[in-house]
């Protein structure tokens, strides 16, 4: 046996022993909830085995998850969109709900979309559906982007600069916004005053990327804290804090 195989077997053994103890001592109840916690712990640890190296246990959990998650999406689409918004209104059509007949249009477009992966004879139908979704999405977004991301962002930038802390902050914000825009300006070479401005822009960008960087690290660590909490409290059933 190779070293990796020994580690693998030892890992399974330790996991089994712990669980036998947990079920034996009634820390984990012998029902679906208890079995679920056992399974969840198993999946969690299988995924962490990636830290040692990429291995079948990790791939097992990862691929099982992909299938389950795909089916979960399918299920929600059926129960809260397709069934109540399409199937029910169309199957229960009567004289009062004739306006629901319009739903045939998006349903057909949706079915057209599914032809994309079919033979070449029909796949052009999917282009009509894509044209509808992408075209409408583009149209709806243009005025709203201008309102929410351009105008609404310009107005608070253009405020009176007063000789106070707030005024200073407003000035710094103005300098930052302007220089960052200069950095992302491609029609002029970055030399002379433009070069200086774009250099200042880079500093602002770097401070903000630093903030994002710190926050991202924070986020990943929080996730790990959450998982460790699950293993300690839900699986090993420890009363925290111990000391």
């Amino acid at each position: 046996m190779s070293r990796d195989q020994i580690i693998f077997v030892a890992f399974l053994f330790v996991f089994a022993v712990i669980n036998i103890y947990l079920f034996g001592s009634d820390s984990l109840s012998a029902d679906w909830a208890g079995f679920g916690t056992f399974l969840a712990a198993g999946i969690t640890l299988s995924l962490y085995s990636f830290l040692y190296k990429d291995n079948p246990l990790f791939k097992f959990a990862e691929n099982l998850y992909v299938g389950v998650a795909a089916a979960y999406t399918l299920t929600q689409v059926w129960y809260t969109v397709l069934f109540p918004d399409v199937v029910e209104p169309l199957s229960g059509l009567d004289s009062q709900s004739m306006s629901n007949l319009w739903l045939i249009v998006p349903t057909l477009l949706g079915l057209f979309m599914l032809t994309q992966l079919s033979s070449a004879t029909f796949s052009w139908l999917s282009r009509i559906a894509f044209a509808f979704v992408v075209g409408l999405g583009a149209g709806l977004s243009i005025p709203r982007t201008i309102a929410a991301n351009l105008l609404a962002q310009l107005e608070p930038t253009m405020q009176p600069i007063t000789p106070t802390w707030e005024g200073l902050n407003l000035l710094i914000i103005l300098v930052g916004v302007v220089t960052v825009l200069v950095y992302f300006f491609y029609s002029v070479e970055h030399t002379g005053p433009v070069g200086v401005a774009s250099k200042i822009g880079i500093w602002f960008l770097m401070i903000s990327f630093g903030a994002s960087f710190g926050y991202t690290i924070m986020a990943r660590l929080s996730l790990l804290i959450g998982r460790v909490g699950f293993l300690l409290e839900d699986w090993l059933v420890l009363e925290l804090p111990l000391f």
Partner: protein
Amino acid sequence: MRYFLCCITLVFCAAQAHAQQPTGVKAEDTPNDSGGSITVVWDYPESYEKAEQIRYIISVGEFENGPFHSAKYNEANLQSTDPGTFGHGEETSQKIFARITAYVAPTDPPKRIAIENGKTYYVQVIAHLPSGESFPSAVASAEAYENFFNTLKTNNFVLGTIFSLVILGGIILAQKRDLFIRRIAGLEALDEALGRATEMGKPVLFVHGLHDMGSVSTIAAVNVLSRVAHRTAEFNTELRVANRDPVVMAVSQEVVKESYLNAGRPDAYSDDMVFMVATEQFSYAAALDGMMVRDRPATNILMGYFYAESLLLAETGASTGAIQIAGTDSYTQLPFFITTCDYTLMGEELYAASAYLSREPKLLGSLKGQDIGKAVLLIVMILGTLLATLGNQTLTHIFTAY
């Protein structure tokens, strides 16, 4: 003395009573809506204290001489804070307005009757004092109708139209002649890194992000790949292109093949240079990490849209000592590339690089149009702040989303 004081109070009360009657009452169709609403405007009382005491009730009737019924309106509107409709001037703070959408008919039980379009309504504003007295105003009339243009969005419409014309104009211009784009430092770094791989006689690894061909970043990445492939063909360096999406793989094969053909080295191309690695995010990263450690490419190029796997890829690449050039418009992943790669194309720089390399009119023209847009925003912001500091907020108000 006491008598004298009483007198003054009496005179003052009389004057006050007269002043309690709401003045300047005007009614008109509520602008920028689909009808069913009338806006009533009247003067603000002389002082804040008085305004606090008075309770206004609006009566609506279908005939000039009544009967009038009390109206339903949104109480939150009973003030003058709608600069979009009434402007920013000093005089707006001297007006009060209410939007009426229905009135209550005195039937049993009382019935809510909605304002109809195209029908004349007569309104009266009644001021109620804490003392129980009430003072009705003169009657005003108005008709509600549907509007065809939301004037609050005029600035939005104008800005959008101008910007659209600039972009479309830029694209048309770019089809006629080549437009100037500044030197992009990342592309020079790219050439240097490719040269390094040639010197060392080690392969170059090109890694696509996770998005499919529908994404702008993937299209940009493919344009960069075309340049990379051209160079590796010239330098006779080994190139490997890693993919997650089958369509991106097929497109990349075409692009690499064409670049090798253009460089006069069709013999050096094989389909195996462009390959699928894995479909799942972490499997993709893990497989590529393995490849980096085993084959130790001299140069790693990571282009496209990346998610959390960016760190796994760039960290392993850096630890093998490879020169790494990254480019992504995924701003959350940029910091990881900046700290682990030798050069990073940040956000829009990736698109600019792609336009620079492909010289496609739609990309070049669009980039140019966006540059003009940025220049306008830049000037507006500087001017607007200057003016605002000098006490003139006109420009700020023009560029406000209402």
